[in-house]
């Protein structure tokens, strides 16, 4: 048996089970849904994913996002979207999914050998 070393923030639970073992289930019908938060840090830049939070509705999600993700003027615009509506590519398929781009180096400008005296290109 392996003896685990304990660190700060990693104290074993009394029962010897991690908090991951859900032996006392909590019903989640009344949970506030999870929202993903995107923030535009200044005009002219894209909104960027910064994290997530729980809120009862979109309005509350935006206000909570302001309170947790822009306390130091990190943003000028906030998007929120319920996490359940995000569709993602499957990391297990990454090799085949992105394969079509692998053999197309000619899509990069560096593929083309041109004389040094050619300028502005």
């Amino acid at each position, binding site marked *: 048996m*392996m003896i685990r070393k304990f660190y700060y923030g*990693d104290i074993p639970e009394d029962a010897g089970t991690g908090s991951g073992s859900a032996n006392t289930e909590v019903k989640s019908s009344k949970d506030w849904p999870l929202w993903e938060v995107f923030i535009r840090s200044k005009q002219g830049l894209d909104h960027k994913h910064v994290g997530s939070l729980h809120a009862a509705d979109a309005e509350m999600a935006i206000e909570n996002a302001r309170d947790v993700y822009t306390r130091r003027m990190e943003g000028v615009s906030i998007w929120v979207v319920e996490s359940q509506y995000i569709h993602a590519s499957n990391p297990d398929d990454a090799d085949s999914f992105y394969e079509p781009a692998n053999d197309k180096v000619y899509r990069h400008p560096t593929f083309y050998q041109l004389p040094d005296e050619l300028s502005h290109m």
Partner: protein
Amino acid sequence: MLEQQFQSKIDNEIKIEPKDWMPEAYRKTLLRQISQHAHSEVVGMLPEGNWITRAPSLKRKAVLLAKVQDEAGHGLYLYSAAETLGFSRDQMIHDLLTGKAKYSSIFNYPTLSWSDIGAIGWLVDGAAIMNQVMLCRTSYGPYARAMVRICKEESFHQRQGFEILLTLSQGTEAQKAMCQDSINRWWWPSLMMFGPKDSESTHSDQSTKWKIKRKSNDQLRQEFVDMIAEQVKILGMTLPDPDLKWNESRGHYDFGEINWEEFWNVVKGNGPCNKQRLEARNKAHEEGRWVREAAIAYAQKKAERTKNQAA
């Protein structure tokens, strides 16, 4: 095979993201660690919140409010990171409130004077920062990202703490004594924050192999002692350890033995404030229940109305 691929990603410093395959033990270790870390941020608001109404000036009050609000935010970043591992927020909160989940023992000590707010910022946040800076490079992507955000905000916490002590250290005799008293009480519990000695583990360390942690408890603790032993001189105060001494050959400070009995006692729930902290959390949770329920009812009603109008 999957495990080998996973380990080779770790070895090549490729971060693990939520939907990637990971060993069950890796997921569980992270869940335990991240949720304990989140609970620590949340419970950590209590000893400081105790002084918001009694802060000595409007400026100090505003600063302390901002700091406590940051801790709430840090709890949120960490809960969100833990949720990506497939564990619900409500379950985590439930585990905290029922006493099943642990949080950092340091928050089971009382804040007896205003000076304690300074000592917490300087020593407790200082110790937490050593750990958190290391965790910015942890192998699990969402945890690392949360840590980067937290570290950016945390440095103000430590600086404001030191400033409180610096002001007191330049004050009246009574203020100086208060400052020294806080340092005396918070020094040893702060050293305990780094956890048991490395020598207590005789087997290979899975957390290091998985790059969840990148430095050992003793390594981080030594770095902390070396840093604080110098900083305390600026305050003109002392650390309560007769064995604290610069060791030329090691290039580090030597320091005395930690009272591990006290450490395990507090971890097991017998610290000065364990009961009080959990009661305060439970009270807040119960008293906020109607707000949470009303908000969801309002959201449902509003959604219903919009649907009816559209129909």
